[in-house]
């Protein structure tokens, strides 16, 4: 873990910052030199190195965009599910029920093929369709993680904040949400990592991401072991770096010092 690399005397915040910056730098560096690195490898990887690098960039981009949208969507859905207004709770419950009960592949195909038929004029390009489907999907899972966080904040915290005379918004933003977010962070990260891998399903509608690149090359060269191993190792590299970033965030929020 990168967080443990820094000197003991550094403060929690300094270590967290150092980890965040170095993980981000490593991420950018890895993506920019991936093409060159892979070009040193023997056939069929070397000659297709740039295609692999471009695929990895698309995968990461797809994950970042849908991950951000999914986080917003998930937070809204979690708030709706815990809202006082019954209609809002029903809408959120229906959304979560429908998304979690159907396969992601079906959702991606649905957004790409069925949505234009249902809503005339809405012809999403493949990347946008994948973003919509992935955000909706990860949003449903995120909302349950955020809801778990919200419910795990003891009732006494809300009461204490209200007893101090804090307004409803301040009770939420100053007291409940920061604690709920901290509790929800580990499951949110695991959802994000799952999203990074699930983005590979976008290949079904023709998005040229990492898995699609690998699959095309392996069917053209008849060398599945080398190509698919490269794909797997690239995913592993990306998920490792993403986990480092989230560890650094988790470490920073951990005021009580429980994370070693």
């Amino acid at each position: 873990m990168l967080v443990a690399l820094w000197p003991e005397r550094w403060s929690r915040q300094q270590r967290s910052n150092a980890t965040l910056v170095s993980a981000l730098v490593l991420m950018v560096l890895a993506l920019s030199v991936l093409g060159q690195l892979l070009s040193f490898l023997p056939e069929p990887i070397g000659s297709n190195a740039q295609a692999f690098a471009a695929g990895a960039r698309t995968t990461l981009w797809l994950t970042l965009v849908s991950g951000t949208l999914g986080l917003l969507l998930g937070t809204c859905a979690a708030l709706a599910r815990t809202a006082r207004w019954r209609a809002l709770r029903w809408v959120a419950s229906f959304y979560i029920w429908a998304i979690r009960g159907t396969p992601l592949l079906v959702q991606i195909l649905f957004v790409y093929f069925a949505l234009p038929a249902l809503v005339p004029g809405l012809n999403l390009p493949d990347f946008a369709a994948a973003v919509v489907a992935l955000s909706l999907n990860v949003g449903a899972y995120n909302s349950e993680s955020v809801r778990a966080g919200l419910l795990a904040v003891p009732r006494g915290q809300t009461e204490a904040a209200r007893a101090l005379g804090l307004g409803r918004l301040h009770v939420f933003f100053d007291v409940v949400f920061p604690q709920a977010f901290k509790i929800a962070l580990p499951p949110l990260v695991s959802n994000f990592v799952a999203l990074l891998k699930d983005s590979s399903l976008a290949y079904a509608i023709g998005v040229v991401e990492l898995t699609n690149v690998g699959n095309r090359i392996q069917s053209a060269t008849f060398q599945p072991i080398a190509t698919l191993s490269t794909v797997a190792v690239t995913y592993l590299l990306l998920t490792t770096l993403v986990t480092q970033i989230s560890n650094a965030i988790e470490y920073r929020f951990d005021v009580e010092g429980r994370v070693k």
Partner: protein
Amino acid sequence: MSTPQAFIVADHVCKSFGAHQVLCDVSTHFNTGEVTVIIGASGSGKSTLLRAINRLEPHDSGSITIEGVPVSDDIATLQKQRCDVGMVFQQFNLFGHLSVLDNITLAPRRVRHTARAQANASACMSMRTSTRGSSRAASSSAWPLPALWP
């Protein structure tokens, strides 16, 4: 010395949880400038009375007034009353995600809109005075706050 004035008045307050009646026709008052102690066996409703004064537990019947204004569900009035009457919980309920200083300054900053620097300075001052005096721990207590908050 001026005559004590009733600041918080409870009048025939009743509260029950299901079939269990906790507050049974409680009438009492708390004067300004006085320290009042409520003593009773555990489960006798001391905390429930304090929670009712803070409207964390709405009472079933009777009335509670603070400076003549009834404690009700009206949000604006309630907020104003909560600025003047605070309470310490049995389990303290400190905000674990905030530092000690932020725990102290959260309410002045958010409720009284005190600037952070000023709130920090006055919090440090009261921390210094309270460590010098003996520790005055109470399981739960209600107190008028204005002296502490500028």
